[in-house]
């Protein structure tokens, strides 16, 4: 591998991991809201979450650019007040991947939360746990299969995402050129196919490792889930 390819691999790993880790808490919270909440506008939230799936990635990337670009109020606020610069940084790539993976994450977690036996939650309540504790000690642990599935989907998506990323933060080697951007670029270049293939295989290998890890994890916690 060339130095540039290595950089892309490292960057993709960083971006995918960050995107997955960063979207997990919010994803779990939103999944819980959608699974258990009864509030006005729930369908709207639901649609909003699914948007990145429904819209062509380019549109998502474009909207991200319009929302978080450094000239926008939000982008300026993040940059000036919190020191978080997103545009044309790997952080922006992570944001794009997180957004693209979000619907997958939320759906998986939500599905698992909905499958949790609410009788166990009330049992925890009778033992003195307030709703937050019930969530942390019963609902969430019992939804772990969904959290794992959601995380792996999000990670895989982040490993393959480029449409929104390239539109939002461009394709700058070492900074925002992730594996898929690089693969895409190579497919656009005469004679780039071999390189694209090699990088695709690398990307698949990484994701396969992540998948294997998640399967092992799921197997370890698996049999504990049936309510008794």
């Amino acid at each position: 591998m060339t130095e540039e390819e290595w950089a892309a691999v490292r960057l993709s790993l960083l971006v995918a991991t960050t995107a997955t880790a960063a979207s997990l808490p919010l994803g779990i919270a939103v999944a819980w809201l959608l699974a258990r909440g009864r509030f006005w506008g729930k369908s709207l939230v639901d649609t909003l979450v699914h948007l990145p799936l429904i819209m062509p990635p380019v549109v998502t990337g474009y909207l991200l650019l319009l929302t978080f670009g450094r000239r926008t109020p939000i982008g300026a606020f993040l940059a000036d007040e919190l020191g978080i610069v997103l545009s044309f940084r790997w952080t922006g790539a992570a944001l794009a991947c997180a957004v693209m993976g979000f619907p997958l994450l939320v759906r998986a977690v939500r599905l698992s939360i909905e499958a949790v036996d609410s009788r166990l939650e009330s049992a925890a309540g009778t033992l003195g746990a307030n709703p937050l504790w019930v969530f942390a000690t019963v609902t969430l642990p019992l939804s772990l299969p969904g959290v794992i599935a959601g995380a792996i989907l999000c990670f895989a998506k982040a490993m393959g995402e480029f449409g929104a990323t390239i539109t939002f933060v461009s394709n700058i080697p070492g900074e925002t050129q992730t594996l898929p951007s690089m693969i895409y670029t190579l497919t656009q270049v005469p004679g780039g196919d071999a390189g694209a293939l090699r990088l695709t295989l690398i990307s698949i290998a990484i994701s396969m490792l992540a998948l294997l890890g998640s399967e092992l994890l799921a197997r370890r916690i698996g049999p504990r889930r049936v309510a008794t």
Partner: protein
Amino acid sequence: ASLKNALDEIATAWAGDTGKPPPKISYAASSALARQIEQGAPADIFLSADLDWMDYVAARNLIQPETRVNLLGNKIVLIGPRDSKATVNLKAGVDLAKVLTNALRGGRLAMANVDAVPAGKYGKAALEKLGAWNGVKDSVAQAENVRAALLLVARGEAPLGIVYSTDAATEPNVRVVATFPEDSHLPIVYPVARIHDSRSADAKPFLDHLRSAKARTVFEKQGFSVLLRSAAST
């Protein structure tokens, strides 16, 4: 992105010669790049694959107009799969639509997107000029980009396609059936300009270098024609 091979080589050589860090080159669709520049991308130089998106940024005062030049030129060609027996003479006068339709034998004419992608736009203009567009437009398969169009022909999905000669030259599975006359479409040019907010001291030297003889050899090796003549904005 069709410029990647050439630009990478030039950039590396330039960095080697000058001892400066190699410029970071972001390859993406001209449209995406233009929008990113609009949103304050930290770029120094914009090399566009067509005039429209360069005009788009120029109209928004995002480039330094005096630095804009049409750097490169290219040609579009009609291709077929390697084993294609088609012969087409691209000349005005003959009923090109009929010739093409016959050559397609019910198949599709692969082109890059005729509204958005430069190669597609040039191809469409050329076919219009040659009086064939209306006859073949329903047979056109518009690919996302010129590489995808090339692929469709190379895989034998489409019996004919219109791509840049630079692309056709590197794909062993296609054969150039005919080259479009230069006057059948607007000149295919790749304008380059320095971004208005460019800060890097290396931008100017690199921009100059792109126009050097050394760079010229590299571009020409990849099949581009180099248009040294600097042009004012159209």
